[in-house]
């Protein structure tokens, strides 16, 4: 029997953003999957032609709402390396605090959407209720819930006073309580396991060959995390990548859930070690040369290539986002599964179309 081609997306209840898959199916089993996108591409890299290198901080923050702070951080760190600028120690620790707040709210957002995709609406609402505390922390410390705009070349533009750090610690205790309460459901519920175990499996070798990054790669037994590069203040903090071995949707869920606790721990460590001093250094001059900068976003490795000629405008800015690296894995994960499992497997890569369509 010849296969039937089913268009999945770009508008689909499980997709918050437009992504299209051409699914060839036979008897409800997926035979092949071909991804397509381009529905909301913005050409942000091209804006480097008409926005100077400082203005581009505001542009790269808008590549993605969920990890905006880490986009700006990666870009600023690349320029700082090019210009020989060393941000002050306090700024480096503050960058970790906001980065991990971003990871927390991104993972909680994903866990909620994942629960919703499985039809678990009450879990979705409870997870997003906890996430609101993180958004409140973002707003109270940076003035914005989503686009934090805290990074500048040479440091950060906002500081935390002792009252704020104390409040963050008390809020994190509540967040931790909420996460623990839901861990029993997320990790042990029969329905969740039935929908996720053994679905969309990737082996360690496949994940490496397909260029997977972040929780996708770590759920296949590869302990790779760009934070181990030691950028910002990560080199002075104690942590190890969260690794699972099964490579299925459940393993990806476990990695992200465990990373919630890791992020809380990293924020506590950063506040405990937060040094006194300036939050930025004055920066003069213009960048010249080329550099590759990397950072660990909630979805994985983000890469910025920056080429500058000493002028106001960059010669080239290239952004490789983590979802762009994880999409090819769908061509291997989807064949062989039932059509009804496609939404769950697709969502398990935590697709960010906004990043992909930068």
């Amino acid at each position, binding site marked *: 029997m010849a296969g039937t081609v089913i268009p999945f997306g770009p508008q689909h209840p499980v997709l918050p953003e437009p992504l299209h898959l051409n699914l060839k199916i036979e008897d409800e089993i997926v035979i092949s999957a071909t991804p397509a996108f381009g529905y909301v591409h913005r050409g942000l890299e091209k804006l480097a032609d008409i926005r100077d290198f400082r203005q581009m901080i505001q542009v790269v923050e808008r590549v993605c709402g969920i990890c905006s702070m880490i986009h700006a951080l990666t870009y600023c760190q690349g320029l700082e390396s090019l210009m020989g600028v060393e941000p002050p120690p306090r700024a480096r620790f503050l960058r970790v605090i906001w980065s991990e707040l971003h990871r927390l709210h991104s993972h909680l957002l994903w866990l909620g959407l994942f629960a919703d995709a499985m039809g678990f609406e009450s879990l979705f609402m409870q997870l997003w209720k906890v996430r609101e505390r993180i958004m409140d922390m973002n707003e109270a410390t940076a003035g914005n819930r989503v686009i934090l705009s805290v990074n500048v070349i040479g440091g950060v533009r906002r500081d935390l006073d002792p009252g704020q750090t104390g409040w963050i610690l008390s809020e994190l205790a509540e967040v931790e309580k909420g996460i623990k309460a839901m861990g029993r459901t997320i990790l042990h519920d029969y329905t969740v396991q039935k929908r996720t175990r053994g679905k969309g499996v990737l082996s360690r070798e496949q994940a490496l060959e397909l260029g997977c990054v972040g929780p996708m790669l770590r759920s296949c037994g590869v302990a790779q995390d760009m934070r181990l*590069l030691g950028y910002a203040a990560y080199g002075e903090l104690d942590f190890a990548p969260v690794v699972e071995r099964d490579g299925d949707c459940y393993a990806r869920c476990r990695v992200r859930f465990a990373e919630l606790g890791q992020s809380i721990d990293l924020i506590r460590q950063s506040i405990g070690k937060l040094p006194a001093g300036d939050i930025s250094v004055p920066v003069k001059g213009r960048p010249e040369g*080329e550099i590759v900068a990397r950072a660990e976003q909630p979805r994985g490795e983000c890469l910025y290539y920056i080429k500058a000629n000493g002028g106001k405008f960059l010669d080239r800015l290239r952004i490789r986002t983590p979802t*762009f690296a994880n999409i090819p894995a769908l061509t291997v994960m989807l064949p062989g599964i039932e059509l009804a499992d496609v939404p769950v497997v697709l969502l398990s890569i935590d697709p960010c179309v906004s990043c992909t369509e930068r």
Partner: protein
Amino acid sequence: MTITADRIESGELCRAVAALKEQGCRFVTITCVRADSAGAELLYHFDRELSLSHLRLTVSGDEVPSICGIYASAFLVENEIQDQFGLRFIGLTPDYQRTLYLQGEDSAPPFRGPSGPDRGE
């Protein structure tokens, strides 16, 4: 400051990429640095245990060998470069024929040519 990258010719690309795969490198991405009527410059990025290595390829025309046969995941970025820079990857599968981002009527590669504010519309 410049990136330390091995300079290779078009004919050596697949062999060099296969050698990196043999060493256990993960394919990260390709950056097309420049493409104009004089040719194109591409950087291939690979990672091994958090250490990056790069290949710098300069081609005189618009045709570049595809590395999809070695790293299947390269199909996405090669299709993107075809759309944005107007290059053509030989052996690319699946080949979206420059419709990954562009529509049929938008045929001019938007990133091709000189960069900067003087480029004009």
